[in-house]
């Protein structure tokens, strides 16, 4: 479940982040600290973004940073970071990001329930707007819990 991954420890907020590399380092820090990923996973994400991997931009100022399981995933994990002001992904003006997620997946299908909830949450106009407007982890948790009850 989404709420078991996005906890007060993994739901982060930051002001004046120093570019997208700093944002990736910050959003992945809780997963690194908990042992869900190794440093190589962060390096792999940064490398793929630097190589033009703006595919992690989902739209609406939201990015889902992730790499492949073999690049250092120990167990499934998810974290988020709301940045103010927005950060340009790969310094590209076409990709301003307000909200970063970091996904660590152990295999392509094993996190189905979590991805279903995340897709539902981010694709719902009202919930997404409220998620982007949340100021702290408690407000994010409220939105996530409502997401769980709507579907």
């Amino acid at each position, binding site marked *: 479940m989404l709420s078991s991954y996005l906890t007060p420890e993994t739901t982060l907020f930051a002001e004046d982040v120093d570019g997208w590399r700093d944002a990736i380092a910050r959003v992945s820090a809780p997963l690194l600290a908990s042992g869900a990923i190794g440093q190589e996973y962060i390096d792999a994400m940064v490398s793929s973004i630097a190589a033009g991997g703006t*595919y992690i931009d989902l739209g609406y100022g939201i990015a*889902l940073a992730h790499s492949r399981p073999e690049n250092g995933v120990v167990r499934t994990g998810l974290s988020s970071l709301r940045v103010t002001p927005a950060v340009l992904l790969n310094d590209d003006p076409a990709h301003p990001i307000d909200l970063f997620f970091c996904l660590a997946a152990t295999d392509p299908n094993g996190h189905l329930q979590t*991805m279903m909830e995340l897709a539902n949450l981010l694709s719902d106009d009202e919930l997404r707007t409220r998620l982007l407007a949340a100021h702290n982890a408690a407000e994010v948790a409220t939105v996530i819990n409502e997401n769980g009850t709507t579907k």
Partner: protein
Amino acid sequence: MKFLAVCSSGLGSSFMIHMNIDKVLKELGVTGVDVDHTDVGAVARGDADAFFVGRDLEEATNTLDNVVVLNSIIDLGELRTKVREQLEAKGIAIPEGDAA
């Protein structure tokens, strides 16, 4: 009938597109469409009847046929329109013709 969502890693964006296609098909009341997700390195022409990708993969997938490019991975309105177009192009009946 098969729809395949494709992204670079095969488990992030493509998984979300897959989930959203499932949701749209359910809304439309359409059954019998197989949906899955994979990475761009593993996909080949003929693997599906339509391939759904984010706009950043438009060039990388230009060897496939019938590629549907999405401006946003999480714009359900856009996906709804494009899934409907694919279904209509394939002659698949849409029970909920005016579903929101």
